[in-house]
């Protein structure tokens, strides 16, 4: 396509351009008409046969470019693809608003739930604080008692052995164990005595079952 045009306009070119040197190459520009890339010629670049190039030529030269304007719009297949892409990636306004409303509702629900939980737990706080104060006092008391007990034991050991005893020495610990056993025996005896006293008291007085029956009647 380029060669016949060049031959046709060659006398024009010769007339229009100044004298160029011997063996000057062919001119890169043409004087009239739009360049039409030859699809059969293997040396035309591939990008000149693409639809985007044709659209550009139409944009620049209009109908003189020889491009069919109907080709400027997408073909049915391309249109289908575009519609599918839009349906997937570009949701409508209503759908987006619905999704946003859903998100907000979810976020609000979670916030309200968390606040309720915090409120319930905070309501228990004064009681928990009071309990803790009591526990603290009890712990202090226990520590005091333990100290007192240890002091008593040390005093007893002191009067036993006569001089200051190291609490971690084995003799001290043996003494502590002996005292423990004695205390337990005393406690057992006390319990036994109390039981016997209670049984005797029960045997003396009449059975309390009849009094209960009278009351029920």
């Amino acid at each position, binding site marked *: 396509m380029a060669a016949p045009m060049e031959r046709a306009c060659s006398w024009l070119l010769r007339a229009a351009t100044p004298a160029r040197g011997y063996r000057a190459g062919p001119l890169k520009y043409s004087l009239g008409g739009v360049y039409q890339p030859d699809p059969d010629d293997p040396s035309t670049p591939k990008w000149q046969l693409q639809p985007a190039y044709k659209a550009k030529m139409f944009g620049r*030269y209009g109908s003189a470019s020889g491009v069919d304007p109907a080709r400027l719009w997408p073909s049915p297949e391309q249109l289908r693809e575009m519609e599918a892409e839009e349906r997937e990636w570009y949701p409508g306004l209503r759908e987006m608003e619905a999704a946003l409303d859903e998100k907000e509702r979810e976020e609000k629900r979670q916030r309200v739930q968390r606040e309720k939980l915090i409120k319930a737990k905070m309501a228990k706080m004064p009681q928990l604080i009071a309990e803790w104060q009591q526990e603290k006092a009890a712990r202090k008391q226990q520590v005091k008692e333990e100290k007192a007990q240890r002091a008593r034991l040390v005093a007893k050991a002191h009067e036993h052995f006569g001089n200051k005893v190291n609490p971690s020495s084995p003799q001290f610990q043996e003494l502590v164990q002996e005292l423990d056993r004695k205390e337990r025996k005393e406690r057992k005896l006390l319990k036994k005595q109390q039981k016997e006293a209670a049984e005797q008291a029960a045997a003396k007085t009449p059975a309390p079952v009849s009094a209960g029956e009278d009351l029920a009647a």
Partner: protein
Amino acid sequence: MPSAVVWELPLPMKTETKCKRGRHGGNKCGRGNKGYARGGNRPRLGFEGGQTPFYLAIPKYGYNEGHSLRRQYHPLSLRRLQYLIDLGRLDPTQPIDLTQLTNSRGVTIQPLKRDYGVQLVEEGADIFSAKVNIEVQMASELVVAVIEKNGGIITTAFYDQRSLDIVCKPVPFFLRGQPIPKRMLPPEDLVRYYTDPKNRGYLADPSKVLEARLELGKKYGYVLPDMTKDELFQMLSTRKDPRQIFFGLAPGWVVNMSEKKILKPVDERLLKYYSS
């Protein structure tokens, strides 16, 4: 004839400095005295002679993380807008659009640099006195109040990247020979902004927008001028369709600059697609 002439000594005495003549400054050529700097053997930029350099000593923090994904809006002050109108670069008798702003070189938008449009800024709110129908991408409450007080209309509209490129540079787009695409809807983060009548969003309910205008007048203490009695009411009330990029041109049309023609599609499917 005086016996003696007395004049003041020009102290301090200035010695004439010979100018350095060479192409690169002459004499030491701005390189100073001995050292590796003279021979051009300096270490890399940021090197501090072995001490841990500043750019390594300071710990990392994500100040700029994701900066290339953040939307940017070029600021346009009301002062600059007034300046452009006063100089005649912007025509207040026509709707002012991003295209008009770009054509008058009032702003330069770079869609490829994550610009999403123009935001109106409050600088010059006290001197603004023009009645305009303006469409921007973001505007604060004071700016909206100022424009409406002067009898104008402001709308905030969203342009996706491709539409923004087309709006800012219409002629190169028309030379491409492509049909005008339809403008896409804003992403989810911006839907709430553009459906809010307080921001005068283009997707908001028009009746709610009117209510918002009255409320704003009450808040800032001005009376809304009645626009139906205005001679430019027709122009002031023109607004773009959410899918429209240019005033007077619908999506799907091909504009040819060389022959000054507009080509419109006739196929049903194309019409349905471009008008959805």
